[in-house]
């Protein structure tokens, strides 16, 4: 009988399905981004006419905002884990504000590109790849914002407490992913590709 493991309840531990599910989603999303990033890199300098990436301005403030939202969301996760709901709501709101700032910043950047530089998605190959890649990322920020807003709504209704810490961590994983992807997109579009 020595080969038979005896299972007490506490010794049989399985990974959290929320985390596994979210990690799987992130792997799948990464593949989508990889395809768009590869297309962007491959098409750098191949456009036959129209504006080139030199017209881009590096969105440093935007980037700082989005990346610091990862920090605030970590602090928020920490707060809810210890049951500090007020602090959580504050930090969560701050995260959302930073996310909204990023979207507003992107909108301003695009407004300038469209009306001053006359670059749209159909203008030339650069326009197509640029708006697709940055737009794909912005779409993910919007989806993340929807998730964050739902949590905010529930928090304001007083429905969120310590027991939701793990679910909030799972959602935060997605937000971290959106941030990490921005690092890649930023490097490719504004540093390597310019």
């Amino acid at each position, binding site marked *: 009988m020595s*080969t*038979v*493991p005896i*299972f007490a309840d506490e010794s*049989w531990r*399985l*990974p*959290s*399905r929320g985390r*596994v*599910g979210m990690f*799987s*989603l992130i*792997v*799948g*999303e*990464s*593949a*989508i981004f*990889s*395809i*768009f990033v590869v*297309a962007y890199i*491959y*098409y750098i300098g*191949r*456009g*036959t*006419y129209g504006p080139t990436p030199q017209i881009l301005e590096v969105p440093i403030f935007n980037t700082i905002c989005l990346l610091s939202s990862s920090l605030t969301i970590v602090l928020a996760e920490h707060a809810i884990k210890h049951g500090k709901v007020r602090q959580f709501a504050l930090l969560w709101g701050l995260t959302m504000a930073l996310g909204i700032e990023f979207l507003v910043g992107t909108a301003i950047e695009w407004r300038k590109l469209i009306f001053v530089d006359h670059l749209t*998605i*159909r203008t*030339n*190959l650069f326009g*197509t*790849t640029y708006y*697709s890649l940055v737009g*794909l990322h912005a779409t993910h920020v919007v989806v993340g914002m929807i998730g964050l807003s739902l949590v905010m709504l529930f928090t304001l209704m007083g429905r969120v407490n310590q027991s939701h810490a793990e679910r909030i961590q799972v959602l935060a994983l997605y937000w971290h992913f959106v941030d990490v992807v921005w690092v890649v997109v930023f490097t490719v579009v504004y540093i390597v590709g310019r």
Partner: protein
Amino acid sequence: MADQTLPIPGTLEEAHRPARMLEWLHSWVVTVDHKKLGILYIVYSIFFLLVAGAEAMAIRIQLAIPHNHFVSPELYNELFTMHGTTMVFLVGMPILFGFANYLVPLMIGARDMAFPRLNAFSFWLTAFGGLMLYFSFIGGFGSYGMGNAPDVGWFAYAPLTAKAFSPGHSTDYWALSLIVSGFGTLGTAINIIATALCMRCKGMTLMRMPLFVWLLTVVSAMTLVTITPLTAAQVMLLIDRYLGGHFFDAQAGGSPIVWLHFFWIFGHPEVYVLVLPAFAIANEIIPVFSRKAIFGYPAMVAASVGIGFVSLTVWAHHMFTVGMTAVSNSFFVLSTMLVGIPTGIKIFNWLATLWGGKIRFATPMLFAVGFLFQFLIAGLTGIMLSVAPWDWQLHNSYFVIAHFHYVLVGAIVFCIFAAIYFWYPKATGRMMSETLGKWHFWIFLIGFHITFDTMHFLGILGMPRSIFTYEPDRGWNTLNMIISLGGFVQAIGVLIFAWNLIYSYFKGKEAGNDPWDAWTLEWSTPSPPPAYNFAVDPVVRSRRPLWDIKHPQDPDWKYER
């Protein structure tokens, strides 16, 4: 007794019948039970199997004699596009996910999938994706008065898909419906991974998981990185078509070759996404009917994971004729040949499982053995085609068609049939008729070989794929006629199978819990299993928990490490 003196015709039950029908239907529409969803997936795919099979028959009638006018050239293009798209996306993927849905929780001793509602959502996405694809036949303003069914081939090569060359909405239907069903597939893949990793019963360590669960987990992990590139490429295609983008527009500096790469980055791993579940089915059936434990369990796991990784690096062997550099050609030749190693390991393991076993040739086993031989031949022609010069000669010929139909029909469809015969008693509580099953097997086997063996020769004689008709003096007439006849023999086999499914549901022998004397956990539940699967959470100590229960004096856990 006053009520009995007024004989109002009909009973209470009859009066409620429409309501009960509605209730029954409602229970299937709103269900989140993994077993019901699994059955929905399987029924949905069998329906589309018959539809796409009918399309194949129309193609074969058209090609049976030269200069035939059974269908118009335009309809012919729609038929082969829809045949391919349907078989891959609406038959192959959903049926395998259907089996995964039904079996994975039962095999690991769980009560449901990790995310039951996501599961239902994924199924309905897939279902509506399929409906949208077929709505194209009647929807929109059709060209040639035939609706807008996709007619660009299942791989939809650029630049044919550009707005200039494909006006109307046929390509849009193709891209949109596959994006929709693709999200469904992604959801199910996430669900299967989470289920296998997080829902196992006590004692079910990873190295005790049934191989079926292992392989479906590998498949799901591959799906995560396989379906998504297709979705991305289709989004690019839609950007080109609707927003005036230039991804695949050579005049603006875009490149149609990039579409080829993106499509095959999806397209080749997809073959393994389809074939690994077939391996998974063989892994369960061959040991049970050989009365032996599977040979080389850890090697099987390692080989499956190996195939998963290697298959991600072979896509450009579909593109040897595009004109890549010698270095890329050599890389993809070698990586493609590399797949032969883990696959060979699997074949030898199955042979070793059969070796010295007490083999019972019930219908599931017949199909599994058929799979074994046919998959070997399919693999060998695959190795032939992986050699770039050979591929230059035979690319886009019927040899390639023969090769991949040997994989898709000879291996995958055979395993799907085996699985249906094997698990039908579990899902319905009744055995499928063995007599009809054997008729089905032999007729289908003979038809399969008449059709697809002959296709190899036709390919070597130079007949290209996707052509509407051919000249009578090319020497292809007899072979084409034989292939078409073989197709009809297969169709007869499939009709027998469809009849068997219906007949056995009403008239089949009662199955009991464990009709095959099998060893995995699903056979410990009643047939069909109750909604909660297991009344008591099972605890397992080995890879064959039911063997341990049936042979307490000689259990597996004494020997397994």
